[in-house]
């Protein structure tokens, strides 16, 4: 046998041995690391510090949403505290309140600042007309870094849903649900997607009912329970039952919403209207 053939055979057998060893060791190595396949490079590199970066990228998405008009670290107390404005409808109360809060640019203190304003974005605008998609890369990154941050999923799912990319939005919400199985916020968003985009009332009802159960398991004992979410879930369930003809159930849900709503008046009116309808039947 020639030396060249001998070398080739040795190389081949070594490669085969390596491959066999790799197939044996890979499952064990996964178990040793206890991180499983889901551990991304970022998680391994940054550890728990990744949450800080996740917050930064989430804020970056908000900066994009405002097209660069955003308070600096020196105007931090005027930065938006919640994410409602990112999914709020135009002219809604949340939107108006946000508009007032974002008026953070004071009168220029000197001529340098006055001139410098020409090189700054000074108009408060929100992304619209499909441009909302521009916030998605940062939200995706934020979710990668901190899968337990629920806002990321609910905000990120809004834009693709709006642009007709429903399956992508559903996939992202399901990703969020896998990372946060008890999240009533993600379940509520998922229900909205089934109801508004797929027009699948049965799945929407199942998901919203589960969201309500999760809320009732987690929130009542809290000092400041998330009443806004409860009202949203209950009102949406009521609408669903009303359109299905289950007026009694719709009234039960509206009663629940009324008990916890900050503006119970309109809900009371709706309850009375439904009661009249039910009486006529």
């Amino acid at each position, binding site marked *: 046998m020639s030396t060249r053939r001998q070398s080739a055979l040795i190389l081949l057998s070594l490669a085969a041995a390596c491959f066999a060893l790799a197939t044996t060791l890979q499952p064990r190595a996964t178990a040793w690391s206890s991180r499983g396949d889901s551990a991304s490079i970022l998680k391994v590199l940054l550890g728990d510090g990744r949450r800080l970066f996740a917050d930064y990228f989430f804020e970056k998405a908000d900066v*994009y949403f405002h*097209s*660069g008009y955003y308070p*600096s*670290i*020196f105007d931090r107390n005027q930065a938006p505290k919640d994410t409602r404005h990112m999914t709020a409808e135009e002219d809604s109360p949340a939107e108006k309140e946000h508009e007032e809060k974002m008026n953070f640019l004071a009168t220029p*203190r*000197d001529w*340098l*600042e006055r*001139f*410098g304003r*020409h*090189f*700054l*974005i000074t108009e408060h605008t929100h992304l619209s007309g*499909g441009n909302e*998609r*521009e916030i*998605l*890369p*940062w939200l*995706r990154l934020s979710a990668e870094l901190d899968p337990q941050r629920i806002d990321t999923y609910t905000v990120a799912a809004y834009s*693709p849903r709006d*642009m007709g*990319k429903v399956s*992508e*939005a559903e996939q*992202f919400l399901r990703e969020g649900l896998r990372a946060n199985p008890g999240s009533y916020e993600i379940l509520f968003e998922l229900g909205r997607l089934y109801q508004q985009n797929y027009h699948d009332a049965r799945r929407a009802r199942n998901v919203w009912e589960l969201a309500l159960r999760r809320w009732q398991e987690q929130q009542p004992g809290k000092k400041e329970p998330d009443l806004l979410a409860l009202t949203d879930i209950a009102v949406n369930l009521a609408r669903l039952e009303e359109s299905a003809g289950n007026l009694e159930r719709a009234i039960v849900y509206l009663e629940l919403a009324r008990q916890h709503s900050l503006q119970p008046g309109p809900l009371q009116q709706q309850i009375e209207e439904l009661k009249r309808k039910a009486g006529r039947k």
Partner: protein
Amino acid sequence: MNTVIALSQVVIKELYRRKDFYVLFVLTAVITLALASANLFNDTKIVRYLKEVVLLLIWISALVIAITTTARQIPAERENRTIFPLLAKPVTRGQVILGKFLGCWLACGIALVIFYLFFGLVSGSRERSWDVLGYVQGLWLQWVMLGIVISLVLLGSVTFTAPSSNATITFIVVVGILLLGRHLNQAALQQVEPLRTLIYTIYFLIPHLEWYDVRDFLIYDHRLVGWANCALATLYAALYAALLLFATWVVFRRKALNL
């Protein structure tokens, strides 16, 4: 003037002989292409994150090129003793400084043109539109800003002993101004005297490099900065560059050239 131009040509030749620019450009291109290949919700129209990353890399690369190229000019001439035959031509010390400044500034301009062409290609290929005026304005303001930085480094190269310390200090100062310059007056008002006056004085003395950073206008597709304001900002930069070059000349004309 011919002497100054001849000196500047040597600096430009140095830029394309050295590997700094090529490495930075390839790095920018590779990072950009890797990011562009990411699949985000199956949406190929998402472009702003890419524009932001490319512009950030362009800013970092341009600063690195400007500072490192300028910082070694005069020390290298002194170390290699080529400054003596140069001054014996006869070339005055003022011409040496002006030649070095012009060379570094033009070299940065050439690098910026290539970088912005790449940026235009990347953003245009995704957006299907070319905001040529926006690119030109962004490039011009950045180039003008680099003029101040180069003058500052030249002053550093006749003040500090080593190019490395000069480059490091200038880099910190420039990044500091870019990040905090705009807020110094606000920070000053929150302090008690005499710190308030001191910080306010610094605020008025430093060149406001942050004005020239109009990346946000390009990223968020905002309307352009007014051309009159651009012209005023250019004048402001020219005054600072002239002041710094004059200070460099004052220090350099009395400096012993032997190491």
